[in-house]
């Protein structure tokens, strides 16, 4: 069924109405934190590239700061821009599932990015990072490097499915390693919150061997607090998502920041490129495309450093 749909879409564009320009709608969250900022950067970059390569195509890029606005944006896209394909990173799964389902049923190609919908089988293509592997990779590093009985603290993100999956992966990797998790709390992917949280943990625990700050913005806050307390030598910090400052520190063999775990915001590029490829070439592209989280080490850090990216 899905393949037929691509085939028809492709045929429509290539043979039946060759002159008809196609419209691709892209809806992503606004740049409210570093990772989303990079998401916007990569979306912009990809649209510019594809626009040059396909002058006939029209791209509609909208950014939203809440689920309600995103629903309105999607309705506008269908009603006024007559889109042929939609690339969407749902702000939240539940409220967006219905509206996206209606768009898919109207025959528009739907690519969902990163945050899955709450019902299966709606989207044609699903492109996402692997949150379980994001946590597991960090946890595996802790289990491999730290000794039995080592003490760690964990900074979680904003309470959400993404955060729960990451923490579950992390905890699964630590199982049986004898590492003790002293405390776990939400730093909300925010530098200032993480700074305060780390200050309080440093006051509370005389011994901390490592910090898992499940995002590099939080790692920045945690590192500043550790530095202030003069305990930089005592512990290391593992963040995540590959912020360029962190990658640089890894490259310089900084003992406090030994590794990092990727969760590439450039996955939006993957999604847009694949969608346009499907529209233009007719190659079968439905299914799931999961981008693994990788461990950034001093050896491979150069591959993960993007000079121009804001993140």
């Amino acid at each position, binding site marked *: 069924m899905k393949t037929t749909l691509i085939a028809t879409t492709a045929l429509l564009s290539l043979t039946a109405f060759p002159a008809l320009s196609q419209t691709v709608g892209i809806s992503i969250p606004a740049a*409210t934190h570093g990772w989303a*900022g990079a998401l916007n950067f990569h979306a912009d970059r990809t649209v510019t590239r594809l626009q040059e390569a396909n002058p006939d195509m029209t791209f509609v890029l909208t950014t939203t700061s809440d689920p309600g606005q995103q629903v309105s944006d999607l309705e506008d896209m269908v009603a006024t821009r007559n889109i042929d394909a939609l690339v969407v990173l749902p702000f939240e799964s539940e409220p967006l599932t219905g509206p996206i389902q209606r768009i898919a049923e109207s025959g528009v190609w739907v690519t969902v990015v990163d945050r899955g919908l709450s019902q299966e089988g709606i989207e044609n293509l699903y492109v996402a990072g692997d949150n379980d592997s994001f946590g597991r990779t960090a946890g595996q590093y802790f289990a491999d490097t730290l000794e039995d009985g080592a003490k760690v603290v964990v900074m979680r993100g904003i309470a959400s499915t993404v955060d729960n999956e990451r923490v579950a992966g992390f905890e699964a990797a630590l199982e049986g390693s004898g590492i003790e998790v002293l*405390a776990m709390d*939400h730093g909300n992917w925010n530098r200032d919150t993480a700074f*305060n949280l780390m200050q*309080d943990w440093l006051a*509370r625990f005389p011994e901390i061997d490592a910090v898992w700050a499940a995002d590099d913005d939080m790692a920045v806050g945690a590192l500043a607090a550790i530095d202030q*307390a003069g305990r930089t030598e005592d512990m290391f910090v593992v963040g995540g998502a590959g912020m360029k400052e962190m990658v640089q520190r890894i490259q310089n063999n900084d003992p406090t920041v030994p590794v990092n775990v990727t969760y590439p915001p450039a996955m939006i590029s993957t999604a847009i490129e694949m969608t346009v490829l499907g529209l233009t070439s007719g190659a079968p592209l439905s299914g799931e495309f999961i981008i693994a989280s990788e461990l950034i080490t001093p050896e491979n850090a150069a591959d993960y450093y993007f000079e121009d*990216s*804001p993140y």
Partner: protein
Amino acid sequence: MTTATNTLTRRPRVNLTVIAPLVALLVLIGIGMALNPNFLSWANITNVLARSAFIGIIAIGMTFVITAGGLDLSVGSMAAFVAGLMILSMNMLTESMGPGLPVIFAGIAIALATGLAAGFINGILITRAGIEAFILTLGTMGIYRSLVTWLADGGTLSLGFEMREMYRPVYYSGVAGIAWPIIVFAVLAVLGEITMRHTAFGRHCAAIGSNEKVARYSSVAVLRVRLATYVLLGVLVGIAVVMYVPRLGSASATTGLLWELEAIAAVIIGGTLLKGGFGRVWGTVVGVLILSLIGNLLNLTDFVSPYLNGAIQGVVIILAVVLQRNTGAAR
């Protein structure tokens, strides 16, 4: 107003109204001492006081605005915007002038001037164009938040490495072991309290908030005083940013998120009336400390699930206000 009447009629109850925030603060400190021996350690006390300084400095200005019957929802976004602009211009100046103290002074001047200008814009539109303060500042809140996101290109603005190292001591060091933000906060709090209690400006604020018409008939320059409260708040936002930037050396779209609500909550917990007419700066300081202490206590214990942090804060805010209002309502 309310308090004035109470002073005449029911002395013991009034005392409860006045000391309610202090009691709440002492109760929190007591809980802290019981829960964790590190609570009263020098490091923890300095941490809590220093991190309270940003909201605290802003809340002092907010006390005047609210006392005069106004409101400013834009301060959190304004702080983020001022911080972003300050970092950007300092980075540019470093390129042209080279790193050094002049860049820091220029950055501080820019922060204060931007704060002043932003406060002036809020004030002039509210007083001269007659736009409701709530709506106008809701608008500027969105504007400043978008501007900082735009300045940062959706990412984070970071101060150059050399300047960060040079500017860092403004947050982290101080005099006799007391960090600069704490000193600045304390000095501003004392000045604020004196201004509110013992100057014509302070009394005019209360008069306007209490009854604008009567104030006007009493030849108070209502519009000018109102405008001055917003300008004062803007400058204080600038000062808060001057203290904030050296901490992490960065600003992003999430900087200062919800600061406006924390500042307003602190002002109200401290006993200032939300409808205006009566304000006290020392109460605001206590309110700020109460809010920071709740966060600190929750981090120092596993007592409640982190999911419930917000709920605990909400309960304490409501309790602190109920405690004071009870006497007023019974009048």
